[in-house]
């Protein structure tokens, strides 16, 4: 057991898998000698060799296409897209190729690849370093979409994603790489070392895909969140003095509908929180599912707290970010309805 922040946990997951499976490779922009702009691949090239962790040209479409070809050969590549905002040049290869190979070839060819990419705001990254494009990927049949919220989950989920035989989009909430930021941007952020989920085994373990975690049990209302917003939701419950049950979805697709329905049937109220823009965001799918499965248990309209339907604004970060103030207001509306 070691104390790890989320970057170290992600690094450890790749290290474990590079050691365990000679068919695992890691590549992407700046990931080799330098170890990645967020240091997620630091030391991997030195330890495992040049051909197992290497730099690529700046061509996201090429990076993903090469990984698809390697997957067809029988390798199990992990690629890093430096920011989720840069993933769009690879969109055709992800949507029309990686996601569809198994189906269109009736299982003859598969794309057992993991696309790691830092996403989300709260770092003053402006509109090209802050986006949350998860709903674009959950809309694509054939992809799995995973978002960890702690170092322990990040390592276990990443190993599960690497071992999965389907393509996985692994979105890393970069605002909480170094500590569980709770949305109170005017307060100092605790480092991960003070959080129990920074206790991470050194070796191999998995956190299964498709299973949510109840990170705070409560009776009054259910909060559905993922990534950074899990910590915002926890802080908001304290701020509002509401006995909220906070569910960290961990995998958006396939979704853990059982954990969600059980909780909403118990509490009768549901608040959905995500950083991404509101319209057609993943919250819309969650709201539709909750009303479909739990309609007769609902005692209040489902609330959504999200980013606004604008590009991510640089100077107005904290007006844009769905922080604790807005989450608390939504919780109170849900309680009062």
């Amino acid at each position, binding site marked *: 057991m070691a104390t790890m922040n989320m970057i170290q946990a992600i690094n450890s997951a790749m290290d474990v898998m590079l050691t365990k499976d000679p068919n695992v*490779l890691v590549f992407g922009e700046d990931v080799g000698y330098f170890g990645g702009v967020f240091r997620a691949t630091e030391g991997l090239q030195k330890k495992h060799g040049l*051909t197992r962790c290497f730099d*690529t*040209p700046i*061509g996201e*479409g*090429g990076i993903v*296409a*090469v*990984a*698809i*070809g*390697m*997957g*067809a*050969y*029988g*390798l199990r590549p992990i690629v890093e897209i430096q920011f989720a905002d840069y993933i769009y*040049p690879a969109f*055709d*290869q992800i949507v*029309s*190729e990686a996601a569809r*190979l*198994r*189906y*269109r*070839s*009736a*299982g*003859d*060819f*598969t794309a057992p690849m993991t696309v790691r990419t830092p996403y989300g705001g709260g770092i003053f990254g402006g509109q090209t370093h802050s986006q949350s494009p998860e709903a674009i990927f959950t809309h694509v*049949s*054939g992809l*799995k979409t995973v978002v960890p919220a702690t170092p322990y989950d990040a390592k276990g989920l990443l190993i599960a994603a690497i071992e*999965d*035989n*389907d393509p996985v989009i692994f979105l890393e909430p970069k605002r909480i790489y170094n500590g569980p930021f709770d949305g109170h941007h005017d307060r100092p952020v605790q480092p991960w070392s003070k959080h129990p989920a920074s206790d991470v085994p050194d070796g191999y373990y998995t956190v299964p895909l*498709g299973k949510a975690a109840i990170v705070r049990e409560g009776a009054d209302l259910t909060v559905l969140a993922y990534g950074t917003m899990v910590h915002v939701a926890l802080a908001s419950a304290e701020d509002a003095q509401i006995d909220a049950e906070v569910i960290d979805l961990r995998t958006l*697709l*396939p*979704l853990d*509908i059982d954990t969600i329905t059980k909780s909403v049937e118990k509490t009768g109220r549901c608040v959905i929180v995500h950083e991404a823009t509101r319209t057609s965001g993943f919250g819309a799918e969650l709201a539709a599912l909750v009303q479909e499965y739990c309609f007769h248990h609902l005692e209040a309209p489902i609330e959504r707290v999200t980013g606004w339907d604008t590009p991510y604004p640089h100077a107005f970060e904290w007006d844009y970010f769905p922080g604790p103030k807005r989450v608390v207001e939504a919780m109170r509306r849900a309680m009062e309805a």
Partner: protein
Amino acid sequence: MKNRKPLSLRVPEPEARPGDTPDFSAMKIPEAGTVRRPDPDSPDHEIRDLAYALIRVLDNDAQAVGPWNPRLDPETLRRGLRVMMLTRAYDDRMYRAQRQGKTSFYMKCTGEEACSIAAAFALDRDDMCFPSYRQQGILIARGYPLVTMMCQVYSNECDPLKGRQLPIMYSSKKDSFFTISGNLGTQFPQAVGWAMASAYKGDDRIAASWIGDGTTAEGDFHQALNFASVYRAPVILNVVNNQWAISSFQGIAGGEETTFASRAIGYGLPGLRVDGNDFLAVYAATEWAATRARDNQGATLIELYTYRVEGHSTSDDPSRYRPSDEGKAWPLGDPIERLKKHLIALGEWSEERHEQTQKDVVDEVRAANKEAESHGTLGAGKMPSVKTMFEDVYEEMPWHIRRQRQQLGV
């Protein structure tokens, strides 16, 4: 406004449109046998002339001449001829099947048979091919059953792809034939990735891919060349320049300014420009590139210069945008006719044997089609089970897809 000459926008146009006389006078066609053949391990900067040349082996007297003559034995030539004839007969039959309403769509490769079949002959059987939609000849060259191809086209109960793919989007891993995509050019960088994997594993198999002239305008084309160059991937990247991308002539993809083969030069790769209707030239160029790749010298870009004799697909009517007799005026002739004449010139073939073989391949196709149709045609007779529609989206069916299958009641 300053006193300057106004700018003007240029939009390329082909030499001839419907009603015009086909005009290929601007095409420079060197005599067969005149292009040098450097060693396959030559540095790319010493062989840049090949990107602007036109490698040809069969001359006007149907003799194989010059340094690129691969000196194939007559039996191999006869097999190559037969596979090309079989492919054309298959195309004709499936085109008719579409017209008879037995399937939704078909694409012929008429006139381009050598581009895939001669290449398949030069490659090893387990070299991995990443084709576009006009390389059915590879599967036929590798002995893939015609019946199975037809069942795919008919989306019937024996379709190995279970009715999921548009006709002609074949897939066969055991024949080293990658699942065909309808999105153009995606397979080019994937082939590079496969080749990188083969190199990483210390394997000796190489990859090959095919796209059309129009697709060279896609980003995937350039990423493929860049990655192939950077990692010295053992891959052969073929551009089948058949002059037409649906209705857009190759000048719209930038083919008027320079050759497609010369795109290789900016990436530090060898580019070969080859007479794509010359079975021997395609074979020799592929063999050269394969030798280079297997020797760890990396990728080669090959432009196969040919002509799309038929429409883009059954949904296309080429008489609306090009002279209908343009194919007949194509100066590089027909790959089947040229190889036939060569074999006759060698004394290894005759008109009678050719006629007999033509009858044989038509019979073979007819018999295969009869069997395929007995398994159903699109929307008529036997179909794959509807419940298979929900399978293979993921390795294991997730709850939400299972639920949707239940909602459909299957």
